[in-house]
Structures are given as structure tokens and as C-alpha cells.
């Protein structure tokens, strides 16, 4: 059994707070299409920190790590296949 220290938890919390502030500040600046990219990149980084440290996946048995990863692979399949349908409908319509 691995016990993560309160100091590590506080560092993760501080990193999450800093990234929350950056998210809000970045939204105040007009970066065009980059705004969404920046917001999502920060959100993914924050989620990764929560999963690895608060949810202990970094220190969990390999089976738990694979299970946690599998969820996001399946989510990826759902998103990619659905979007590849919707985003290509207009391309096909051009041929008509």
C-alpha cells in the first residue's frame, strides 16, 4: 500500500488552482480558435493530475491503470467515430 503525503496533495491542489486562474484569464483574451484549444488542454492536464494523484492511479496496480486508461480509449472511439460522421457529411454533399 502506498500512502501519498499531504505535501504532494497540497502541491497538486496548488497546480490545479494556478491552472484554473490561467483558464479564466485566457478566456478574457481573444485568441480566436486557440481559445478552445487552450481551455481544453488545461482541462485535460487538470483531469490527469486528479486521476494520477488524488485518485492514486499513479501508485495503483497495473490492472487499475489499464482499467482507468480503457475508459478514455472507449470515450475516444465514441467521439472520433461520431465526429468523423458529422464532419464529413458536407464534404460528401459537394459531389451532388
Amino acid at each position, binding site marked *: *500500500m502506498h*500512502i*501519498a*503525503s*499531504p505535501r504532494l*496533495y*497540497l502541491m*497538486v*491542489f496548488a497546480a*490545479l*488552482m494556478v491552472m*484554473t486562474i490561467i*483558464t*479564466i484569464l485566457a*478566456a478574457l483574451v*481573444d485568441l480566436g480558435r486557440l*481559445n478552445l484549444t487552450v*481551455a*481544453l488542454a*488545461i*482541462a485535460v492536464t*487538470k*483531469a490527469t493530475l*486528479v*486521476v494520477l*494523484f*488524488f*485518485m*492514486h492511479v499513479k501508485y*495503483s*496496480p497495473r*490492472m*487499475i491503470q489499464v*482499467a*482507468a486508461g*480503457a*475508459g*478514455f480509449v*472507449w*470515450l475516444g472511439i*465514441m*467521439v472520433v467515430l*461520431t*465526429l468523423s460522421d*458529422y*464532419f464529413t457529411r458536407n464534404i460528401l454533399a459537394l459531389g451532388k
Partner: protein
Amino acid sequence: VSDVAHADAHAEHHPRLQHHFYSLEQQNYAATLGMWAFLLTEVLFFGGLFLAYTLYRWQYTPGFVEGSHHLDRWLGGFNTVVLIGSSLTMAMAVYAAQTNQRRKQVLFLALTILLGLVFLGVKVIEYGDKFEHHLVPGPNFQFPGPNAHAAEIFYSLYFAMTGLHALHMIIGVGLMSVILVMAWRGAFSETWYTPVEISGLYWHFVDIVWIFLFPLLYLIT
């Protein structure tokens, strides 16, 4: 197995060890894996809504931008800080259980519940404001300009996604209340704290959902 033999079998091991497991460690491993299996169904459950959001935002971008501007980003940001804070206190509650500190378990679990309630309280204020300003989809929805229908779709998704998230928060507060009572009675120790750990996994998952909801709903530019 006779009652006597059953009682004898219990006497030889930790009272929380169930007989179909070799050890408490294996039992904890199985429970954690089971919780993750549940959380994966939750990822896909919320994932479907995020996917619907993506498609509609792509289709109706101007309406989504206008709709988003009627949400209070400072209240949303405040709630993000509150929820991440509650994840910290949750992690500390698990740590307190792992290190046999009963009073700290109770303290951190109470703080987690309190922060969860603050989050829900802010949500009540926000929802009330939306009702007042006719931003709730339905016959009373009012929105100026040509993008009113798109804004109504935005608010449909806003209420579906934050409503489902808030329902998870309410369940989480209920769950933590049970864990708090158990911790108060001294149920957890370094040898057995599985319920604190796996309900913590649920709490952190709900936090992660909000980490995505906040920029996608409140900060559209």
C-alpha cells in the same frame, strides 16, 4: 458450515475480511477495480452529453457564444475553486484513514461535505437567476436577437449537463454523510479503509466532470 465453525473462522482474521478473498489487500483491490468499472460507465454516460454539446456548438457557434455570456463566469470560477478544494479535503480524509487519525478523518469528511454543499448552494443561486431572466428552455424562454433558438439549445445542454452533475454532487454528499458517520464510529483504520477510498474515487470523478464543464459552458468566446 455450523455456526460455531463459522464464528471460529471469523476469529482468525480481520472482521472486515470476507471469506471469498485471500486477504484484505486482495479485497481492497477487487473493490477498487469494481469502482473503476462503474466510473468507466459514468465516463461514457457524461461523454454522450459532451459529444452532443460538441456537435451543437459546432453547428450553432454564435448562439452558444451569446448564451454563454449570460452565465456568471466568476460564480462558475468560484465553484471550480470550491470543488477542487473539496477534492483536496477528500484526499486528506483518505490519508487520515490510512494513518489511523480518526478526528482528522471526521474533520476532512465534514469539510468535503461542507464544500459540496457550498457548490450546490451557488448552483441554486445560478439556477434561480436563469429562471428570473427567462433563460430556462421551454414556453417562457426569451432571448434577444436572431440566435434565440440556438441559445435555447445551449441552455438545454447547460441544464442537462450541470443538472446531471449536480445530481451526482447530491448523491456524493449523501455518500460522504454515511462515510462520515462510519468514520465517527471509528470504523476505519490503516488495515481497512476501502469505503473511504472508493467513495473518494467517485468524488474526484465528479470533480473532473466539472473541470470540463466550467470552460465549455462558462467561457465560450
